[in-house]
Every structure is written in C-alpha cells, then in structure tokens.
C-alpha cells in the first residue's frame, strides 16, 4: 500500500493538498479581510480595495465600540452567562450522567429513553416560549442559564465516557464506605478531566454564540448579550450602527469622524470571535475528542 502511494505521489497528493489548502484559505482569508477592515479608518474603507492589510491604520473603530455602554454591558452579560452557565451545567450534567451509567439502577432504561426522546420530538418554539413566560424567566438573565442547563447530547457523551472508566476503583471506594456523592466528587470527576473539558467547551461556545434567547426572550436592552447585539446590528444594518455613532459624541468633532456603521460592525465581529479564535489553538483537541467519545458504541 505504501509502496504504491509513493509512485502516485504526484497526482494524488498534489490534488489532495490543493483542495485542502484551498479550503483552509477559504476559512482564513475572510477573517483577515474583516480584521483588516476593522483596523482601517471607516471612511477610507468606503472607497473599497482593502484586502488583507489595513490601508489607513486606525484603532478608532474599537475605541468607538468600547465607548458604548451597551457594548460593555453586553460583554459583561455574555461573560456572566458563559461562566456561570457552563460551570453549573457541566456539574449537573456530570451528575446525571454518572447516575445514568450505574448499571444496577432500577428504571435506568426508562429514564434514558425519557431523556433521549426529547431529541426526537419537541413541543416547538411557541409552547416552549409560553413555558418560559409562565416561569417568569423571560426578560431575566436566568433565561440564558436555566433552560440550557442540560442537553441530551452532552448527557450521552458523558455517560458513555463514565461507562469506560474502570469499575474496580469505584468498587474499592464503595467497600471503604464512600457514599455515591463522595465517589462522584472525589473519584469520578478527577478521572474525567478530558470529557469535562470537552463538555465545558461545547457549553461555553454555545453560551457565547447564542443570540436567539437574547433576541426573542429578552426585551431589556441592559440584558442583551454580545451576540444579540451583533445580530441586531446585522439585521437593522445601518440604523443601529448609526445610532451607536450618534450616541458616541463623534458628531461633536465632525471633522475627525473616521468610523462608519460598517467599520463598527467589523470591529464588533472581531470582538465576538476573538475569544473563540484566541482560545481555539489550545483547546481544539478537546472538541474533536467529544465527537469521538460520543460515537463510541455502548
């Protein structure tokens, strides 16, 4: 097999690498373009012709964006929901998954199906929304955290991982008189760092990226997360960006305006993706791991 590969290196590998490199370029280049635009004077960018380097370098866009109290506030909301939501959710998910993998648990199959079925069928968005309203969750910060505490997918991944842990350690602890909670906290959790990292990352990314709840379940502008702010910018395009601009007091010094609605939008995009891209190289192995754990047979 390998011998044959060497012979056909020319055609096969060249073709192969070309496609893969093109794909990777299609992912990297748009970011460079947005990055260049965000660091370029907005008024200058309107002339077009900016590719991967800023022409008139300026950090004015970022200064303007961060001058907005809404943006700072939205960042705080996003950070809060990401941190609190992830920590609580991972802990509760792990607990449920641990209980579900106990093979002797009476009713285990029924409970698993009860949870799994929600993946196949749901009541739809309107009854869901009405439940949130009835619980007085809408228009509070908890609507970001409580309804996303559990996800079927994450429970299944964790359960599969726990099933792969050696029984002997747990048995030994049980014989020593450890309670289930102690076993869970002192033995299972420390042994499960990889899967916890994976689930925590999935959770954190989902929280950081979620714009939907902010747009539809929350009216108070003080409670909108960063992703929702960006979504409102995109949908209301100019209107919102211009409002941002007007509030900023940039009009007081008219001759100095260099930012535009579009350039503010570019800076906001970069602010939203920056945490993900900066953390990504260090954690990406955990992401792929999650998929592989999840697909392992029972």
């Amino acid at each position: 097999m390998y011998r044959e590969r060497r012979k056909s290196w020319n055609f096969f590998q060249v073709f192969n690498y070309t496609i893969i490199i093109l794909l990777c370029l299609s992912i990297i280049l748009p970011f460079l373009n947005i990055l260049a635009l965000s660091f370029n004077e907005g008024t200058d960018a309107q002339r077009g012709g900016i590719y991967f380097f800023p022409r008139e370098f300026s950090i004015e866009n970022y200064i303007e964006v961060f001058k907005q109290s809404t943006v700072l506030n939205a960042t705080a909301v996003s950070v809060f929901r990401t941190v609190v939501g992830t920590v609580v959710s991972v802990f509760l998910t792990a607990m449920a998954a641990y209980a579900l993998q106990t093979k002797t648990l009476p009713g285990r199959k029924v409970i698993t199906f009860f949870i799994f079925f929600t993946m196949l069928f749901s009541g739809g968005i309107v009854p869901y929304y009405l439940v949130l309203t009835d619980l007085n969750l809408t228009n509070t910060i908890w609507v970001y955290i409580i309804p996303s505490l559990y996800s079927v997918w994450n429970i299944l991944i964790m359960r599969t991982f726990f099933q792969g842990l050696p029984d002997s350690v747990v048995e030994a602890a049980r014989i020593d008189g450890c309670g289930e909670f102690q076993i869970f906290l002192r033995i299972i959790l420390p042994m499960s760092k990889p899967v916890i990292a994976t689930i925590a990352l999935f959770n954190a990314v989902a929280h950081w990226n979620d714009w939907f709840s902010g747009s539809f379940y929350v009216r108070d502008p003080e409670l909108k997360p960063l992703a929702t702010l960006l979504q409102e910018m995109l949908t209301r395009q100019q209107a919102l960006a211009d409002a941002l601009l007007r509030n900023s007091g940039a009009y007081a010094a008219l001759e100095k305006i260099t930012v535009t609605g579009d350039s503010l939008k570019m800076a906001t995009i970069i602010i939203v993706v920056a945490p993900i891209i900066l953390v990504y190289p260090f954690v990406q192995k955990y992401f792929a791991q999650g998929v592989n754990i999840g697909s392992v047979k029972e």
Partner: protein
Amino acid sequence: MEIATEKDLGSGTEINNNKKKKRKKVKPVGMTWKNIKKHRAQYLMLLPCIIFFIIFSYLPMAGLVLAFKEFRFDTGMFGGAWVGLQYFERFFQDPQSWNFVKNTLIISGMKLILAMPFPIILALLFNEIKSNKIRGFFQSISYLPHFLSWVVVVGIIQSILAPNTGLLNELIKNMGGDGSTFFLMDEKYFHSIMFWSYVWKDIGWSSIIYFAAIAGINPALYEAAAIDGASRLRQIWHITLTGIRPTILILFILSLGNILSAGFDQIYLLKTPGNAEVAEIIDTYVIRTGLQSGQFGYATAVGMMQGVIGLVVVLVVNRFANKKFNTSLW
C-alpha cells in the same frame, strides 16, 4: 436553544449496526423497594435532570394542545376554548403556506442530500495525509467555522458580498465586470449563498466522524485489494466507502428528522426583503407569526405539523434501514 444545535452533528446515539438482536441478556434489575432505596443517591442526582426535561421538554409537548385552542393571556397555555382544526385549515388554505413548505423542502433537501458528500470527500482527503502533525493542523483549521455563531458568519458574508466594496465585487470589478451587485438582496443568489456557507461552516466538523470511521477500517483489507491489483480509487470505492456505509446511513437517518426544519439561525439571518420569497421557511414563519405577532395557537399548530412529520420520517426511515441494511438508531 443554541446548545441543542450542538447535536446537529447527529451521532449522539450509539451506533449499533450489524448487531441484529444479539443483545446480551442483562439480568433484570429488580424494581423492588429495597433496590430502589439502595440507589437513592443516584435518583437524587437525576432529580434535577428529570425535572428539567419535564419542564422544558414535556410541558411544551403538552402545550401542543394550544394547536387546537384559542390562546388567552389570562388563562395561559391550557385555558381557552377549543377551536378544533381551525388553524390547520387556515394553514392549508393559505396559498402562501405552500411556498414556505416548498422553500423549506428545497433548502433542507440541498443541505441533507447535496451537501452530504462534501464532508465524506474531505475525510477521504484527510485520510490520504499520513503525517499526523500536518493532518492535525489542517483539520483544526477546518473545524474552526463550526464554533462560530451564524451571526458572525452572516456578518462576514454581508461584508464580503457587499455591493461595490465587498471582496467579491472588487474581484468582479478587477476582471472588468460590473461590481455593484447586491447579492444578498437578490433571490437569484440566495440558494448558492445559503448552500456554500452551510458547507463551508460544517464541512470540517462533519468530516470528523467519517474520518474516525475510516480510521477504524481494517488495513489488511487494503493490502489484500492491492495484491489483487485494485487501484487506489477502486480501493476507496470498494473498501473505504463500504466500510463507512453504516456511519453514513446513521447520520443520514438522524438528519432526516430535520427535513422540515431547514436551520433557523442561518436562514433567518440571511433573509432580506429582496430574497424573502425564496428564503421564508416554516421555522422563520413560526417565529414570525408566533413570537413576533403573537398568534400563539396558529404558530403552535404549524410547528406541531413540522415536529410530527419529522418524528414520523425518522421512525419510518429507521425501520427501513434496520430491515434493509441492519443499521438502526436503537
């Protein structure tokens, strides 16, 4: 809401193929009081989880009665008078509805069927790179877009496709073209923008599972085929693709459940006044009539049809796949 989309990769269930009825006889777990009491810690651990799913999944399912009722704010979800099938009639009589259904089917069809080969091909290409380091590098780059919100992706699309100043229009201008096309406002371009941005965002991520399946194929098969004189392409066709067929099928079955939901985030954000004619799908319609203009009963009815059809399709296809290919979700 958003967390649920993490499962869009669709392999949360154990892939148990070719294990037809070979289930081990597990000794029955006694539902005796003693046994239950022994596990009270586990039940306590599961309690918040069960309450959660009752409240946020099963209560909304019960709320589907709203599809047959008139919604009143004072009595809430379960009050109100029965209206029979009025909402369903309204939906089927409205000629616009068929347009939404058609748009939904076109978009989800493109995503489920046309887009499916791309991650498989990418997994095959990755498999040809033997150096783990180099492959890992390219793979990590390819997963990245999956972790970006559609808000960000659509923001990038808006910028690149902007008339005059966008990257694409610049390119067209440089090649002597017009360069003022407003791609996002023109329904002619909607499907290609939708399709390619979808492929772009998830090609790397979806390839992981196929790649793992390919890695699990017995290398002896390739050696045997090579001795028999099979070319590389033939080996890929007969060994690799046959080997990952169960995986492909499982993912396909799972994704069929989404046949009537064409991906809310992306479509909602890409929709503009210019392309609404082809971009309005059932999901966006439900949000528009339900959450945005408060016709709760009607929107519930439309959403319910979508959910029920999705469930039925998954069950039917799963049964078919079980019979025909011995591959099943459970």
